[in-house]
């Protein structure tokens, strides 16, 4: 289904003519800047999880700045259990996915039963239970995006990456998955790549976006 809904802004949704904003302004980058790894008040301790391009499944957990962040997280809740999600977020940021070993380590740290941590981790879709590519591409195909051609966008990513839904491309760059509504429905199709939203994506934009990712990492 193609129409002339104004899809003028591949990659972001700011320059509609009524708003002349830079991409950084729309994303809030000009306000936050690049967050220092150890920075920030404990209140945001939900940590500042990020999905990093570099994924190091063997990286040590909770050392150096990550230890600081962990300590801050623990101050924000009345019990240790409540820190489970933020701590798993942090573990995934460091390692790229949450392996059974990672879950066990987190269980030990928070003094929770191992089986309990596995049960919680597998409940949530954002924890990658197995390794993903450098770029995890999540295409929303839910109703608002679907009405504006999300299936074609999904198809275009799969074709470019030459892979199947949920699988990682041969060179390890792209994992393409179908996602549920990302709350960017007014800017269809909405795609999340690692930590970042790409809005108003059309099939034609896909090669450009992927090349830019490979070259610049974002």
């Amino acid at each position, binding site marked *: *289904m193609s*129409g*002339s*809904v*104004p899809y003028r802004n591949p990659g972001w949704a*700011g320059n509609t003519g*009524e*708003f002349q*904003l830079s991409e950084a*302004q729309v*994303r*809030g*980058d*000009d*306000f*936050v800047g690049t967050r220092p790894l150890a920075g*920030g*008040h404990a*209140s*945001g301790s*939900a*940590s*500042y*999880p*990020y*999905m990093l391009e570099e994924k190091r499944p063997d990286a040590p957990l909770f050392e150096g700045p990550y230890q600081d962040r962990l300590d801050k997280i623990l101050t*924000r*809740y*009345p*019990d240790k259990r*409540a820190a489970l*999600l*933020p701590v*798993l*977020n942090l573990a995934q940021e460091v390692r790229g996915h949450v392996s059974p070993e990672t879950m066990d380590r987190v269980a030990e740290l928070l003094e*929770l039963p191992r089986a309990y941590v596995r049960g*919680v981790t597998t*409940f*949530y*879709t*954002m*924890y990658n239970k197995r390794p993903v590519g450098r770029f995890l591409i999540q295409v929303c*195909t*839910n*109703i*608002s995006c*679907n*009405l*504006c051609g999300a299936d074609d966008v999904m198809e275009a990513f799969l074709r470019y990456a030459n892979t199947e839904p949920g699988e990682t491309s041969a060179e390890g760059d792209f994992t393409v998955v179908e996602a*549920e*509504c990302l*709350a*960017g*429905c*007014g*800017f*269809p199709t909405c795609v*999340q790549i690692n930590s*970042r*939203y790409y809005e108003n994506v059309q099939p034609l934009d896909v090669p450009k976006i992927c090349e830019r990712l490979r070259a610049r990492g974002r």
Partner: protein
Amino acid sequence: MAYPYASDREVRVISEYFGDPEARTLDGAKRRGRYKGLEKALSMSPDDVVEVVKASGLRGRGGAGFPTGLKWSFMPKNYDRPHYLCCNADESEPGTFKDRELMRWDPHQLIEACLLASYAIRARHAYIYCRGEFFETNQVLAKAVEEAYADGIIGADVMGSGHEIDVTVHVGAGAYICGEETGLMNSLEGRRGEPRTKPPFPAAAGVFGMPTTVNNVETLCAAPHIVAHGAEWYRQWGSEKSPGTKLFCVSGHVNKPGNYELALGFPLIELIEDVCGGMRDGNALKAVIPGGSSVAIMDADEARRCALDYEGVAACGSMLGCASVIVMDETTDIVKQVRRMAAFYAHESCGQCTPCREGTSWVTKILRRIEEGRGTEEDLDTLIELTTQMVGTTICVLSDSVAPPVQSSISKFRDEYLALIRRGERVGAA
């Protein structure tokens, strides 16, 4: 300034600074009047704050439309046990994209609102349960919280009032069901986000077993304005039962999709034709979903006479929900879109209740079969019966949410289902 498009039909109370990057900074926010409402609230008693909100008639914007002041008044009126405020920022209902905009353009408005609500319900700690996918939004919000801590607005002595209130941004990990208030509380406690049976209600035993109030981002954001300007001021918009303004998230086949803040009661057809610049390509309107994926679909006739407030939408056989208006033109394949919504519920069901776990996946399978031309007319009856049995039989209302889109589409667009089914028969016979 609605973002990314503006319209002069809007009444911008909470969305005034969308598209204005300066409003994000503490200085910018203060210059724009943020924290005035909180300052006034702190000079009143908590119960008086609740009374003002009650008098304004503000209703929950998270979907159910429950009166906010009344909800606050259920909280115990003492400091015996810790109370908690949970701000529901898990926004994941398909078609809804307002809370993300509220947080990323005007984070201080939400912080002020959380402090004000915490004060009113005597909570010392507010958690903002923010959807995990919102990495960028989270950064903006967390930075604003930090700024507010540094300025003494949040913390041990809120704006010099002697009251202690903490605010923590808590990031989820991707589960629609964590938007349901008891699922949210379980998730915040570090458990699977499975809804709890009620009672006990959150005001008696909520998060960490303590009295808790859960409110949507948009609901909270309205509160400081109401306290600052008074209940009567808020009632100048909307109707007796649905006062005030509301953000309408318009998506689908319109020329200018986006968030528009309008007085409740605004005519739906004017929203589409005027505010949103009409249908794309001048196509004819076919159907509208007025309140996100879990409400009944309206056909074009109903849409033409619908007024957008809680009662007006109900009179047209649907629900305002969180006012996520999904507009569909004549090219829309209704069966496919309903199947896509059903698949969403099948994916997001937490699996505790059999009618929901089994029902959502069977509905999806049957719809898929019809879509692929292998359905029968009895399938339509089965769908109605199945979805009817999914209403009122489960712990939370996710299960109930499947019935309205499925049943309304079958009754209003039966021809489309039949066309697919009959074509299938012919293919099978040939």
